């Protein structure tokens, strides 16, 4: 899979008189896993929508492999996951995955078999189940399979596991990481959970409270799988927490 690079340059956004984002500059390498951390309401989700081109920024720009987001959307290179699984309740799990392939079909694209994707996320036995009969964790697994169905090059993930219980959340993150290592898409992972950010990503970007601006970045050079009890992990966690705290208190 050819993953894309994401370049965000001098990006500012306002909703009426509310200043949501302030001069964001961010470059994410192809295949890099970057977490965006910030307190609630700091514009994380807005930034993700701007990167996907679901909204247009008041100032500045976003490029995916040098192209505007609309081009990446048209080529179905963006995999989108949010806190709600947003499955269609009248379609079975398999039909939900298939839908990702039927919408905006790409001629000549190699489309993975939905059943194999469901196997990959551990939902083989539930291919014919309807989403509302599944647990929250299983619904997010289905959403993940659906994200994989389009053979995406970029994953934009807005706290996809935030509504799940701690253990399910950890397990799913682990599995997601394995799948990421297999396909190597470029990932922008939004979370307010520092621990999760450090466990998953190559780099953690901390946003200030509103208006969201980049407060700092922390590289995570630890090998995966990561031991969250190790001294190095704990040191990074402290460093990130200090950065976030300073901004919140300062703000």
């Amino acid at each position: 899979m050819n993953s894309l690079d994401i370049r965000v340059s001098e990006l500012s956004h306002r909703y009426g008189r509310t200043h949501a984002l302030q001069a964001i500059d961010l470059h994410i390498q192809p295949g890099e896993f970057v977490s965006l951390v910030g307190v609630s309401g700091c514009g994380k989700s807005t930034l993700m929508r701007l990167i996907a081109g679901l909204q247009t920024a008041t100032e500045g720009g976003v490029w995916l492999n040098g192209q505007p987001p609309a081009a990446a959307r048209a080529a179905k290179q963006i995999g989108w996951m949010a806190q709600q699984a947003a499955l269609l309740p009248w379609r079975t799990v398999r039909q939900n995955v298939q839908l990702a392939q039927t919408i905006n079909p790409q001629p000549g694209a190699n489309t993975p078999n939905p059943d194999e994707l469901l196997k990959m996320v551990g939902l083989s036995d539930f291919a014919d189940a309807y989403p509302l009969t599944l647990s929250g964790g299983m619904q997010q697994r289905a959403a993940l399979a659906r994200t994989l169905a389009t053979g995406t090059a970029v994953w934009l993930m807005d706290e996809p596991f935030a509504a799940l219980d701690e253990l399910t959340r950890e397990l799913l993150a682990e599995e997601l990481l394995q799948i990421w290592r297999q396909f190597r898409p470029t990932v922008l992972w939004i979370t307010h959970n520092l621990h999760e950010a450090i466990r998953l990503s190559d780099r953690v970007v901390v946003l200030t409270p509103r208006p969201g601006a980049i407060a700092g970045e922390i590289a995570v050079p630890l090998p995966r799988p990561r031991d969250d009890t190790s001294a190095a992990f704990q040191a990074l966690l402290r460093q990130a927490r200090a950065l976030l705290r300073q901004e919140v208190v300062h703000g």
Partner: protein
Amino acid sequence: MAKENPQITQISQISADFFSASSAGSAVKKFGQKRVNLSGVGLLVGVFVVWETAVRLTDTPAYLFPAPTAVFRYLFSHLADLLLAGGVTLLEAVAGLVLGTAVGLALAVLITFWQQLEQGVMSLAILLKSTPIIAIAPILTIWLGFGPAPKVIVTALLTFFPVLINALTGFRSVDGALLDWLRSLNATPQEIFLQARWPGARPYLFAALRVVGPLALIGAVVAEWMGASSGLGRAMWLAYTNLNMPALFAAVFVLTGVSTAVYQTIVWLEKRFLFWE
């Protein structure tokens, strides 16, 4: 509703109460269909017994208030005629319901795709909906005669508005997260409509149909009162002008039966189409 003939409002209110009561009953059904059915039948029998006794004890003449036995005697002796009349009214009501639903849906789709049409379409729809149906019905009868056409149109006029409003609400009720996901795939407005808006609006549509189904029969009967060559409305009108109370009550009984059947059919369809709920 407010500007319509108060009598119709009352009738539709009564039927709405009646039907909401029966839908509340359907929730109880889960515990034991038989028990609920029996208690429903028991209640009905009870009402008839009290009614019969009261009429007999007070010696009320049948031209004022007929006893149930008198009504049923009339009903069974004129069964074929009444069923035929019921069939005619049912067909008119269903045709009007289909037309009204189609128009309501078409307008809702139109507004969903071209939002700039909303104000114009809604003003017109509200104007049509606010004109008392009791005033339109005679005009249509004079223009179109005693056949089914004015009945179908009156019924359609009575039914399109709730469908329009509910369909529009349904089309717009798509979950924001789902909409984001579809847009992230560059789904066209048509794809979004077919995959998300239309199936997602089905619960809203059925809610509208539950209201509009019994309303359709009222529309057809009211139009028949204005002049018809057949139908339950005509049967009622004839009974009324002849002060034949058992005949009038018999027609009402048949109408209630047909109306309940229409409502139950809609409920049955709803269960089939909203399987995921």
